[in-house]
Every structure is written in C-alpha cells, then in structure tokens.
C-alpha cells in the first residue's frame, strides 16, 4: 500500500475578541495606522503552527488536528480561539 503523503495543516491561535491583544494593537496603532494603509482598520496577533499529517484527505487531516488541539489543550479555550485549515 502506498504511504499517505504528508499534508501541512495550519493552526492559528489568537486571543478571543474579548481578551485584549496588546501585540496586535501595538502593531496596528504604532506602525500600520501611522502609515499610508488607511483601509487597514485593525490587527490581531496570534501563534502559528504548521502541523504535518500523514493523510490524503485535507478535511480528515484538519479534523485530526482540531482533535489534537482540543485534547492536548494546544490553545486555552478560556481566552483563545483556534482556526485549523488544511
């Protein structure tokens, strides 16, 4: 049987809207808002993980990674939201 290929799954962890994000706010206020990019109206920072999964099916790989994030508490649901994308 051919081995499944390695699929990269992207995980982004960021603070929920209710939790201040001083890094994102600083990047926006002190860099972007002072520049010419007037239509940029806000920035949220986060942590990025690229997870390599043996799979041929992006949807299945994303489900597995979401399960991993939940079970291993890769993010703290009290303060963070997570997006998983294969």
């Amino acid at each position, binding site marked *: 049987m051919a081995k499944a290929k390695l699929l990269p799954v992207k995980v982004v962890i960021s*603070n929920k809207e*209710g*939790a*201040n994000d*001083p*890094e994102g706010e*600083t990047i926006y206020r002190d860099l972007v808002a002072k520049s010419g990019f007037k239509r940029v109206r806000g920035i949220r920072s986060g*942590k990025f993980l690229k997870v390599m999964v043996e799979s041929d099916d992006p949807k299945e790989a994303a489900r597995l990674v979401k399960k991993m994030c939940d079970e*291993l*508490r*890769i993010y*703290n649901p*009290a*303060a*963070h939201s997570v997006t998983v994308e294969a």
Partner: protein
Amino acid sequence: MRTNIAVVRFPGSNCDLDAVQALRMIKGVNADLLWHEERSISDYDAVVLPGGFSFGDYLRGGAIAAKSPAMERVSKVASSGRPVLGICNGFQVLIEAGLLPGALLRNTSLRFVCRWVSVRVENTHTSFTRGLRKGQRLRLPIAHNEGRFYASPSILNRLKDEGQAVFRYCDEHGRVSDAANPTGTIDNIAGVCNREGNVMGLMPHPERASEPILSPDGSADGALLFESLIGWLNC
C-alpha cells in the same frame, strides 16, 4: 508529627529551591524536591508547583508541564482535598491543567515585569490564607511576562461572587486601582483559588519574600502564606 510537602521540579523550574527553603524554615515541615516524573508526588500532604520556565515556556507558560505525568498525581492530591499551591509558572501550570479557571496572557506592556508590589487579601477561607486578615496588604515580588489573568465576564462574575479572586494588586494604602495594576490583569487579580479553596495559584512569589533579608523593607510577608498552609494542615 511532621508535615510532608512536595515541591515539584519540571525541566526549567528555577524557584524550586527557594520554595523548599521557605517551607523548611517552618518548624515540623519536611519539604522534598521531586522530579516531575516521580510517582510519590501523590503521597504528600500538600504540593507546591514553583516558579520558573517549565519546558522553556514553549507553546505558552505551563502548557506542556500541564500534560506531564506529575499533573495526574497533582490532580489526585487536589481532588482529595489536600492543598496545592502554584506560584507564578506553577499558577500557569494549574490553569493549563484545568485545576483553576481562566487564562494567563501576556502582560499588556508586552514586557517582563520584575518588581515588588502590594497585594490585598480578599479571601481568608483558603488553605493558604486562613492565617491572614481580609483586606490585609502583603508586599511580594512579581517577575513574569505572562501573568495577565483573564476570564470571560460570566466566569469572572462567578469568581468574584464565590470569593475565588484571593489576591488583588493594590497600592500602598490597600486601594485597588488601575495605577496599582502592574500587568493589565483583569480586575487587578493576582491570585485565584478553586471553589473548595484547597487549590490556589498566584503570580507573586511568596517564597522570595519569606525572610526579611530578601525584601527591600525587611518584611517577610510571603512566609505568612506558608505558615497558613502548615497551620491548616495541622488543625
């Protein structure tokens, strides 16, 4: 009868010996330093998770230690009603292990804040504050980058209603204010406990304030927490 307390050392802990020293200064206390893989953690009368940078603070402070074998044993200690204290990184570990509510986020200033602060005692019904007065002001040092306590409005209300916000940052007159908040922590919260009051975490370091020689003003307020704990265990 001697009281046996475990201080758990993770790779990257660095306030472990200070905690052992602060505990051993109290008469009748046997404090042992235990590697986080030791099985006997669950045999102790109480457990202290010390400060430091367990597992390099990778992912976020306390997140990896929370999944180490030690924490299953610490959970057993907690669920049996025995006291568990988390200091700084130990507080982060207790939150990440789900033994305490909320989250500890990066300080609003995005800086590592290292200085002496005042905290006000808000709850004297925990294993660690029973010897203190409500409203009493303690001088303790903080030293952390991720110590901004956060909880959703509904959880925060519950914490306040049930007295689980044990310590709040205050000024030298005991007033809780924005100016006395060193990290942007919600509602000036510096330490919280579980509903039962036997599991508590705080960002300030009582072990670094347990002898007059350690403090700038000759106070030793940190020792009061450890003495409360031993008093609770012996009563």
